[in-house]
């Protein structure tokens, strides 16, 4: 073995293991965070399955023939809750609010001629197929939100296997904001939206963590270099010192929020164009990109959240003695940024129980993610509520920060701790 390697390795391990900041940050936090995420994911799958089981499937029988009765009977035998209506156009179903009335998010239309086509096919005319039209409401939910629609596709496939291969085909259409978008598969649209709804939360995580590190390092560097100590003895208002620090981070936060918005807008455009040629899904035409007001609100939400995170970083770094300590302290905030962000990627916020909704609402860092989904559907009330809440939270944080800097109490406590250590060392 390399000479001295073992000695150095043991020393390094002792140093790392004995540092509580590293122990908590690298070992305890993942041990707590991942089980929580596991619970969230488990809950996500469970709730999606429950919803699929509880969902009622609305069937519009415009055919009224023998085969449509057989098909409906087959569906009933699978255990799906079915509500039956006759002689309605898909648009009438939407206009008459039949979906919410039947507690359903999807319906199947058995068109006129269905039974005739089935009879032709089963009598040996293989070229003639029957078609049913499937319509699903697009909700922009979490990753597992299309479990219900996939279940229905599976049942139709099994019907085909039971009767005759390739006898029955389905057309897929999506209902977006009350309008039928013919030929757009809800699953494909859901996949496309998820690919985008992953990008923004990830960008927000990176931006928040990076900005907090910068803010915390800025204060900690002042402490480490003792320039803060010098500043505190200068004829300058201590509140001005804090505001100077925060204002510079506000400017950086503002620039960062604008940069994210520009990048996000560009990304939506490029993803739309890329997918368009293959599946004919154009999010802009479907109205699934934020309006200008939506972008502005999302930008404000992001900016306020960043500001709040930066103020919190400044406060936490005030308790650290040096840059390393400040960065370790900031690490403790990461779980409350990561958990809601990842949870909101996987879960459909609207279908969550009130208690989990309340917890997610209470965490300020959830709001830009909630906003990013809400603005697409024009739900500005949720976004504005989030902005007001995070603003209030930020004001409280900034007040605490100002008390820390304006009074000598926190400085004394911190110096007392530091001094005590020195005294202990010297004894």
């Amino acid at each position, binding site marked *: 073995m390399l000479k001295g390697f073992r000695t150095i390795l043991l020393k390094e391990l002792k140093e790392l293991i004995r540092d509580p900041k590293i122990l908590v940050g690298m070992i305890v936090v993942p041990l707590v965070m991942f089980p929580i995420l596991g619970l969230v994911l488990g809950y996500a799958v469970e709730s999606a399955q429950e919803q699929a089981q509880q969902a009622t499937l609305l069937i519009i029988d415009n055919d009224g023939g023998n085969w449509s009765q057989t098909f409906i009977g087959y569906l009933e035998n699978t255990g799906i809750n079915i509500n039956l209506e006759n002689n309605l156009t898909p648009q009438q179903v939407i206009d008459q609010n039949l979906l919410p009335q039947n507690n359903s998010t999807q319906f199947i239309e058995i068109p006129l001629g269905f039974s005739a086509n089935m009879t032709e096919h089963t009598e040996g005319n293989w070229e003639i197929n029957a078609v049913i039209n499937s319509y699903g409401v697009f909700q922009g939910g979490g990753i597992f939100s299309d479990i219900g629609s996939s279940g229905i596709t599976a049942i139709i496939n099994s019907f085909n296997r039971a009767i005759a291969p390739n006898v029955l085909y389905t057309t897929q259409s999506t209902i977006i904001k009350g309008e039928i978008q013919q030929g757009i598969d809800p699953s494909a649209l859901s996949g496309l939206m998820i690919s985008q709804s992953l990008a923004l939360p990830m960008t927000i995580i990176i931006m928040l963590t990076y900005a907090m590190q910068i803010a915390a390092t800025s204060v900690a560097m002042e402490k*480490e*270099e003792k320039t803060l*100590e010098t500043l505190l*003895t*200068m004829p300058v208002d201590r509140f001005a010192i804090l505001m100077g620090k925060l204002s510079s981070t506000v400017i950086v936060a503002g620039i960062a929020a604008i940069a994210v918005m520009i990048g996000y807008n560009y990304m939506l455009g490029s993803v739309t164009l890329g997918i368009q040629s293959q599946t004919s899904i154009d999010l802009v035409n479907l109205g699934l990109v934020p309006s200008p007001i939506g972008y502005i609100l999302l930008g404000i939400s992001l900016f306020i959240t960043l500001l709040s995170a930066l103020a919190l970083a400044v406060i936490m770094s005030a308790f650290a003695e040096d840059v390393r300590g400040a960065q370790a302290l900031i690490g403790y905030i990461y779980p409350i940024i990561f958990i809601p962000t990842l949870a909101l990627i996987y879960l459909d916020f609207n279908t969550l129980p009130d208690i989990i909704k309340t917890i997610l609402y209470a965490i300020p860092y959830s709001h830009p993610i909630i906003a990013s989904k809400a603005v697409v559907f024009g739900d500005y009330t949720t976004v504005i509520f989030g902005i007001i809440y995070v603003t209030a939270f930020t004001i409280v944080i900034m007040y605490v920060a100002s008390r820390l800097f304006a009074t000598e109490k926190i400085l004394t406590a911190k110096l007392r701790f530091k001094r005590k250590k*020195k*005294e202990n*060392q*010297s*004894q």
Partner: protein
Amino acid sequence: MSLAVEAKKVVKQFGNIRALDELSFQIKTGEIYGLIGPNGAGKTTMLRIISTLLLPTSGTVHVFGQNVTNNASEVRKILTYLPEEAGAYRNLSGWEYLKFMAKFNTTNTEKIQQIIDEAAKISGLGERLKDRAKTYSKGMKRRLLVARALMTKPKLAILDEPASGLDVLHAYHVRKIIKNYVKEHEVTVLLSSHNMLEVEYLCNNVALLDKGKIIVEGSPKNLITKYECENLEEVFAKVVGYA
């Protein structure tokens, strides 16, 4: 002669540790006063209390008649404080750093320029002031910071270990700056040091601290005579019972 600093029965308690134990002393205007003693004796704690960073647990401190506890903002107008091993802003040039600090004292552009010119003279850093502080050696950084502490001609300059860790030439330069500046501008200086020879060279009066208490006080010359020693180092060792 009026008093620059008057400390009466100052106590500072950090939890169970009594860092300062009824410390009392007076500093006359225009003198260089040294607090000397080993690590943990309470020197830095006392300097921080005088410079309004810490509050005394009990006792009072007045700087030119102003109470440091009740009138901290007024005290900050008349003193400057140089912490031990302080740094400058790494990405500011020496000149920018001095300008940044000068702006806290005046908004008048001409006065700011005068202050910076004065600092440039004191530091002796010349053209290097245009370079960023992160390119400075330890000695250059200390010269910059000492210049910052003296450039506004404060009534009281508090210097914690002004020449600690510097090489012979930089330490010589810093001591010379302090000595000459006090003579020329009647600035009162309170400094702390481990270096007894430095204190002997600079200070009119010294207080020897040990475990938060002043064990002996006087001019270096008188103390050396009184304890029949060759230098202050020996005096210190003798009074703490080490020699």
